[in-house]
Each structure stands twice: as structure tokens, then as C-alpha cells.
């Protein structure tokens, strides 16, 4: 009911006799009957605090305008001109304010209501001149003293019989005279036209374009998309008396479905988390980037988006929060406003994947050229090292012309972090290695790597799905018993319809009865890994994972190892490649195990496939995690190698605090930008870890 008050001029009249074209525009009219808006407006006048409008500040224009006539169009124009700061003279043939309306609205609107609505002219620069019958002569006189004249339509018709009217601007063929065209909406149409005429007069007198930016003036078709899914047709409340009682009005308002397009929000836990909607988020992000100093309140929000592009594909108008957040991150990095802690762990993980423990680029063993280069990605080796080895063994056995292997990260982590220079460097390095291997066709196992290579490099790629479709499943792989499963689509495959299709076909070939989730193909939600959300905002990432896992009762089949890892912690989930090549024993490794897995898979491949001997990195410090500590470390993003560094130093320097109650030692060490603290106890030749925590602040004696 509050909406009505500020926007309606002459509220009592309108709420009594408005033609209410809005009711047909109400979305509910598509089901049965629109909201009874006219009656609700009436109820808000009758039962609400419908008092005089608040005074607003008017900047005086010192220009005189005139209105001749006293119908709703003229009164509306007079009011709007006065609001814009013009002095307005109203010339009326009637004897008093409201008389004209009383005559035309007789029996439909009470005299009291009409007079009460005329109160808006109080304290406005509007002077009424009554008993002034219009004539051509009087109009010409008025034109000499006023800069613009708004004429009642019937007066214009009688005085300027062959005058023309422009319906869009309400200008006429007579200079300085404005009027309206008769429409099917004598009440609300007249009031709207009064406002329109005032705008044209104002623009003319200010010497600015009369037409510009007026496309959406008055009423126009909304572009708002509102789904009626799940809305049951209902009947409008019928008033027992002439108008609604307060209770009936409240009941009618409850039919309202609050038209708003939240389709993207419904499908995204991140957009839901901040309890608002994209238009507002975009504004917040814009403000966040605009302020030079002060608190950047939207930083965490910007860094929590999965950048997965789901919203763009759901939105009927393609609004893309991913792009907004991604650009914001790039800007923050460029202007040194990116919080240092947001992506550090992820970027160090990328460094690890492209470092000596994992990175590798080699021709197939025993060959010196490659037609293909298998690129499983940084997380496949971290999460499913045995599956990776089995895939490589199969591909190098069945594809002709040599299948090289490249282990590393495609650079998407840096891209997600907004670190463009770092992203370019990572791609550049991969490109150089690829050229050195003779530009083989890259076989990707991750749709994200594939889309990165396609979008940002000239390297030729095929997906493992295309390859397996071509060469068939490995011998011995057959359909298991018929099981139901839902396909959980990967965000990296948004533009890769072919992979999405092959995966489904392959799952069926493997014996699964597959179906799609509610959000599927290019609109599937993020598993919580995308966009580094899990590093910048663990809570939001968890909500994404819960939402993704909760879409269906059936076990999921994924074709991204990160989706499988995150969703698989909540419910039964398999990667299609795991169905084909087997699954690792530990299928949801901790952050530290992921690093060990990378190092292990590289070592095993070098030793078993290339017959090279690899020096194993031996830690002198052997640690055992006390119960609950592994989960704690993952939660706090602390690696076992950080802990080992702390203990190594403490044992060497003997700098540690002893807790006499427990006999545990507490030691700390600065590693990079972080100080790690570890509580431990020496147990034979091992160290038992009881807890660990960290902070980024430096601490020193004052």
C-alpha cells in the first residue's frame, strides 16, 4: 500500500474511477484474474495514512507557464509544472477549484474526495483564475505573457480546428501550445498525459532535447521476467460492500506473487547467500570499486562468486554476475586492492601444480614425437592419481602416433583470482612446452582446461570424451547392472554441448539409467570449487556444494574431478572416468594428501613408464595427526608441510613453549606471508600434532 502513495497524484479520484489498465497487466491475469489494484488503492486511501504529500524542494525557474482548462489533464500538468519550479497560472471557466471535476465525475467520486485531492496545490506556485471563458483572443493574450501554454483538449479542438498534435510529446502545430489526444483512458491517461506535457514544456524551455530518453515514459511493457511455475490460479477477493474492508484488502494483497525475476538466484547458492538480487549486487560492486579509501565492504562478496556463468545462462536477458565479479577482481588486482589472503592458498597450489613436484612434459616413453598430449589437469592428479595413470596407460596404448603427457595447471586458478599477468605466464609456459613437443593435439580430461585452451591459446585440443567416443571404451569395460543416476554437469562444459552429450551416452553405455537434474547442461550450479570460492569464502562454497548435492536423491555422475570431489563428500558420486578406469582408494583426499598425490603420481609415472629413477623427498620429521586434526587443517587451510617446517625449526633452535600441564610443545614459524603455530609432542621418533593455527600479522617484541 505504500507504493501507491508517492506515485499517484489525485489518489482519491484515481482510486475511485481509474480504468485500472494495470490489472490486465498483472502477471496473475495470465492464470485467472489479476490483483484488484484499483480497489486496493481505494482501500489504502480509506484505511491508510493517506495524508498530504511531503513537501519537496523546488528550485525556482523564474519562468511563467499557463494552463487553460481544469480537467484532470490540465490539473496534472499544472501540478507537474509547479513541481518543476515554474510559476503556473491556471485559467478556468468554472467558479471554483474542483467544480469542473465535480461535474464530470458526478456520482462516481464524492465532492469531499475531489476537494481533498485539490489540497496538493497548497503552497505550490500555482495561481487559479476562475470565470475566464477561453477564446482565441484570451489565449493569444496569455501567450504574450507566458512562455508555454497547456490547453485542455476540447478547448484546443474548438479554437484550433485544424491544429495537429504529436501524441508522443504532446507538442502541437501551434507554437508554445501543448495539449493531449483523446484516449481510451480519460482518468489515468489524462493524468499521465499532464505529466508528459509538463516534461515537454520543461525540456522546451530548458532548450534540451524533447525526445531523448523518453521511450519508457508513462506505462510500458516491462522486461521483467516472472515465472508462474508453482503458482496456483486463485480467485480475487470480492468485496461484500461497495469497496474492500481493511481485512478484505489485506486478503487481496496476499494474492500478490511479488513479481520479480529471481530465476538466477533460485539456482545459485552464492546469489542466495547475500539475500538480495543481482541488480543490487552489481551496484554494491560498482560502489566498492569506486571508493578510493574506506571500507571495501563487497570484497568478500566479489571473491565468493564461482564465476561459473550459470546466472548468465538462466537469465532471460543474460545478466552475468560472473563477468561482473571477474572484472571486479581484475580491477582490484590492478589497483592493489585485492585482499592478500583471498587467493594466496589457491595460487600457491597452482604454483605447486606447475612446480617440480608435479609438472612434467614428455613424449610417450620410447618415442621422440607425439601426435597427442594427454593433459589431465592439476586436480585430477591431486584427487585421482591412480585413475589418471590408468587413463594414460590406455590412451598411450590405443592412440596412434605417440601420446605425450603433460602434468600441470592450465592457469585457470590465476585467471579466477583476477591475476592476468600470472595467468598469461602460466599459459605461455605451457605453450612453449607444447611447441617443444612438436605441437601435438592436446587431450584434456577437464572441461575447464579445455575451455581455457580453446579460448586463450591456439593449441589444438580434443576432449577425452571425443577421443573415447572415437576409439570406444577400453576392452573389458562393460555395462554393469542397471542403476539410476543423475548427471551433474560441469561449469567448464557450458559451451561444450558435445561433451555433455557424449558423457550421457557413455553413462548409458556403462549401464546407467541417467536423467538430468533440475538445473542441467548450461545451467547447472557450481559444485563450490569454481572461481576459488572455496578459498575465499568457505561458508558460501559449502552452501554451493550442499545446494548442488541436494538437487536430486539419485547418485550423481560427474565429468569434472572437482565436482566429484566436492559433491562426493555429501552424497554418492562418481566421475565417469572412474567408472571406466577405476577409483582411487582414498577418493576425497585432504589438502595435504592432494599434494602428496601429485608428487606420487609423477614419481610413479617416471619410474614405471619412463623407467627413470626419482629421488624421493625425505622428511626428517615424521608427523602423526591426532584425532580430528586432519579436518581442522583442511578447515584452516594449513598443510602438513607447513607443520613440518615449524617443527624442523623448533627442534633445531629449541625455541618452543612448553605447557607443563600437558607436556606439549607450542612452536611457531613464519612461512611466506603466514605465521604457523603448532602444538605437538615428540613420540618415539615421531611427532604427534594436537592442533595448528595461523595468522598473517607479524608479531615481534616491542
Amino acid at each position, binding site marked *: 500500500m505504500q507504493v501507491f502513495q508517492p506515485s499517484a497524484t489525485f489518489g482519491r479520484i484515481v482510486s475511485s474511477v481509474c480504468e485500472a489498465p494495470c490489472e490486465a497487466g498483472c502477471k496473475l491475469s495470465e492464470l485467472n484474474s489479476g490483483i484488484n489494484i484499483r480497489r486496493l488503492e481505494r482501500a489504502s486511501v480509506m484505511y491508510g495514512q493517506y495524508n498530504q504529500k511531503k513537501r519537496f524542494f523546488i528550485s525556482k525557474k523564474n519562468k511563467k507557464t499557463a494552463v487553460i482548462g481544469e480537467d484532470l489533464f490540465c490539473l496534472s500538468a499544472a501540478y507537474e509544472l509547479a513541481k518543476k519550479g515554474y510559476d503556473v497560472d491556471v485559467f478556468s471557466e468554472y467558479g471554483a477549484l474542483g467544480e469542473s471535476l465535480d461535474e464530470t465525475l458526478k456520482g462516481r467520486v464524492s465532492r469531499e474526495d475531489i476537494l481533498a485531492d485539490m489540497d496538493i496545490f497548497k503552497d505550490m506556485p500555482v495561481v487559479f483564475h476562475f470565470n475566464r471563458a477561453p477564446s482565441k483572443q484570451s489565449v493569444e493574450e496569455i501567450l504574450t505573457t507566458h512562455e508555454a501554454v497547456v490547453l485542455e483538449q476540447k478547448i484546443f479542438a474548438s479554437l484550433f480546428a485544424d491544429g495537429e498534435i504529436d501524441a508522443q510529446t504532446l507538442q502541437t502545430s501551434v507554437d508554445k501550445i501543448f495539449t493531449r489526444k483523446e484516449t481510451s483512458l480519460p482518468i489515468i491517461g489524462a493524468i499521465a498525459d499532464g505529466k508528459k506535457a509538463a516534461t515537454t514544456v520543461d525540456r522546451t524551455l530548458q532548450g534540451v532535447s524533447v525526445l531523448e530518453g523518453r521511450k519508457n515514459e508513462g506505462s510500458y511493457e516491462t522486461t521483467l521476467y516472472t515465472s508462474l511455475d508453482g503458482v496456483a490460479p486463485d480467485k480475487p477477493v470480492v468485496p461484500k460492500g461497495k469497496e474492500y474492508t481493511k481485512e478484505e484488502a489485506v486478503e487481496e494483497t496476499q494474492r500478490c506473487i511479488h513479481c520479480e525475476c529471481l530465476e538466477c538466484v533460485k539456482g545459485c547458492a552464492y546469489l542466495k547467500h547475500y539475500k538480495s538480487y543481482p541488480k543490487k549486487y552489481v551496484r554494491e560492486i560498482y560502489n566498492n570499486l569506486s571508493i578510493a579509501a574506506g571500507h571495501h565492504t563487497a570484497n568478500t562478496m566479489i571473491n565468493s562468486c564461482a564465476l561459473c556463468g550459470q546466472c548468465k545462462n538462466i537469465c532471460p536477458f543474460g545478466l552475468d554476475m560472473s563477468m561482473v565479479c571477474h572484472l571486479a577482481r581484475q580491477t582490484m588486482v590492478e589497483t592493489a586492492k585485492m585482499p592478500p589472503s583471498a587467493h594466496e592458498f589457491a595460487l600457491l597450489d597452482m604454483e605447486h601444480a606447475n612446480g617440480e613436484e608435479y609438472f612434467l612434459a614428455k613424449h610417450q616413453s620410447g618415442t621422440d614425437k607425439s601426435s597427442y598430449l594427454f593433459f589431465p589437469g592439476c586436480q585430477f592428479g591431486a584427487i585421482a592419481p591412480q585413475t589418471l595413470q590408468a587413463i594414460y596407460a590406455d590412451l598411450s596404448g590405443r592412440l596412434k602416433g605417440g601420446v605425450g603427457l603433460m602434468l600441470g595447471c592450465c592457469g585457470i586458478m590465476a585467471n579466477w583470482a583476477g591475476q592476468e599477468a600470472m595467468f598469461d605466464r602460466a599459459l605461455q609456459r605451457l605453450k612453449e612446452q607444447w611447441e617443444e613437443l612438436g605441437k601435438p593435439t592436446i587431450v584434456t580430461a577437464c572441461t575447464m582446461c579445455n575451455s581455457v585452451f580453446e579460448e586463450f591459446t591456439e593449441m589444438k585440443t580434443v576432449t577425452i570424451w571425443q577421443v573415447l567416443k572415437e576409439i570406444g571404451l577400453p576392452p573389458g569395460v562393460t555395462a554393469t547392472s542397471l542403476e539410476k543416476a543423475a548427471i551433474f554437469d560441469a561449469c567448464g562444459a557450458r559451451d561444450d554441448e558435445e561433451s555433455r552429450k557424449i558423457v550421457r551416452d557413455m553413462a548409458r553405455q556403462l549401464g546407467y539409467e541417467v536423467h538430468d537434474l533440475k538445473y542441467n547442461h548450461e545451467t547447472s550450479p557450481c559444485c563450490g570449487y569454481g572461481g576459488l570460492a572455496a578459498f575465499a569464502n568457505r561458508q558460501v562454497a559449502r552452501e554451493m556444494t550442499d545446494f548442488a548435492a541436494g538437487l536430486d536423491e539419485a547418485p550423481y555422475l560427474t565429468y569434472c574431478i572437482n565436482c566429484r570431489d566436492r559433491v562426493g563428500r555429501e552424497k554418492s558420486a562418481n566421475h565417469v572416468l572412474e567408472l571406466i578406469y577405476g577409483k582411487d582408494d582414498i577418493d576425497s583426499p585432504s589438502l595435504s594428501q592432494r599434494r602428496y598425490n601429485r608428487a606420487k603420481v609423477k614419481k610413479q609415472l617416471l619410474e614405471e613408464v619412463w623407467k627413470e629413477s626419482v629421488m624421493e623427498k625425505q622428511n626428517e620429521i615424521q608427523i602423526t595427526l591426532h584425532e580430528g586434526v586432519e579436518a581442522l587443517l583442511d578447515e584452516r587451510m594449513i598443510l602438513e608441510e607447513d607443520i613440518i617446517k615449524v617443527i624442523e625449526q623448533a627442534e633445531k633452535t629449541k625455541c618452543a613453549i612448553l*605447557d607443563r600441564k600437558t607436556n606439549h*610443545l607450542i612452536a611457531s614459524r613464519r612461512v611466506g606471508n603466514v605465521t604457523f*603455530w603448532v602444538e605437538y609432542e615428540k613420540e618415539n621418533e615421531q611427532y604427534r600434532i594436537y592442533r595448528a593455527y*595461523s*595468522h598473517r*600479522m607479524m*608479531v615481534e617484541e616491542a
Partner: protein
Amino acid sequence: MEEKKVYESIEADASLVCGQCQEPLVKGSAKFSYMGNAFPVELPMCPKCKLIYVPEELALGRVLKVEKELEDK
């Protein structure tokens, strides 16, 4: 004398001693710093070798909060 503002003052737990000097930790003056800002504090430390202790509650509480605030500035 100018009174110096101390952001945080933590008493030393009686059971904590310096592993090297065997001295019980006592409250002493220390300084946190991050992104060009410094904060005087009083933390448990060894009176002899000045080894400082930052308890977990402080690290994951106030310190983390101030880190975030400074990062968002």
C-alpha cells in the same frame, strides 16, 4: 607521561614456560604489524629470551578480524 594505547593484553598461563630457558612466561610488550599498520599489545613471553606466544583464541579472533579489516581498507 603520554599514555600508550594497548590493543590487547593477554595474561600468561601459569603452566607455560620457555622450552629453552625454563622461565615461566610473563606478560610483556610486543607489537603486531600488517600492511603498514602497527598495534602495540601485551603478550605472554619469556622474560629472558623474549620468545613470544600468540594464543589460538587471539590469532583466530581479534587478530583475524583486524587482518580482514586492513585488507578491505
